[in-house]
């Protein structure tokens, strides 16, 4: 029951964060909201994999957190080294 309510709260937070990601002004605001969205998706993965008792989905979430970390770090390095900031 508590896990279900946690999933509902996380889906609401994910919707608000994704709306702010779509309507943000500059690239750094967009990166911040992208980081928030990826962390919320990670929480949903983890809570749902405990809810259905699946170990493979938990391994998938471990892969997802590595890929989301790499996305934010590589786009930030690209912006620092003189990339396009639109």
């Amino acid at each position, binding site marked *: 029951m*508590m*896990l279900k*309510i*946690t999933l509902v*709260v*996380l889906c609401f*937070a994910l919707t*608000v*964060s994704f709306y*702010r990601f779509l309507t943000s002004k*500059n690239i*750094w*605001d967009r*990166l*911040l909201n992208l*980081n*928030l969205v990826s*962390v919320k998706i*990670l*929480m949903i993965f*983890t*809570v749902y*994999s*405990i809810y259905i008792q699946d*170990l493979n989905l*938990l*391994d998938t*979430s*471990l892969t997802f*957190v*590595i890929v989301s*970390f790499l996305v*934010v*770090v590589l786009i*930030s*390095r690209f*912006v*620092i080294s003189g990339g396009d*900031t639109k």
Partner: protein
Amino acid sequence: MIIISNIMLVVSWIFIILGLIGISRFDKLYSRLLTSSKIDSAAISLILVALMLREGFTEMTSVLIIILMFVLFTSPITNHLIAFSAYRKGIAVEEEKND
């Protein structure tokens, strides 16, 4: 154990809602970076520890510990890199005014 896990899940809902309010209310980029990094690290640590307490000693707990260590190591690095690139490429930090 289930009761402690439930209490931690309720505290994590409060942290998530407070994070949404804080992101919406601040208007400068650096204030929003501070709020998002603090609140999200607290919420994800609470949720992962609550799930560990709920599971007990199984093989799922080891994967949860690995995810918790990875998030606690990499969340400051991403927020530092976003703030560093914003500082390098022209968003100024507001100077403090002495009246």
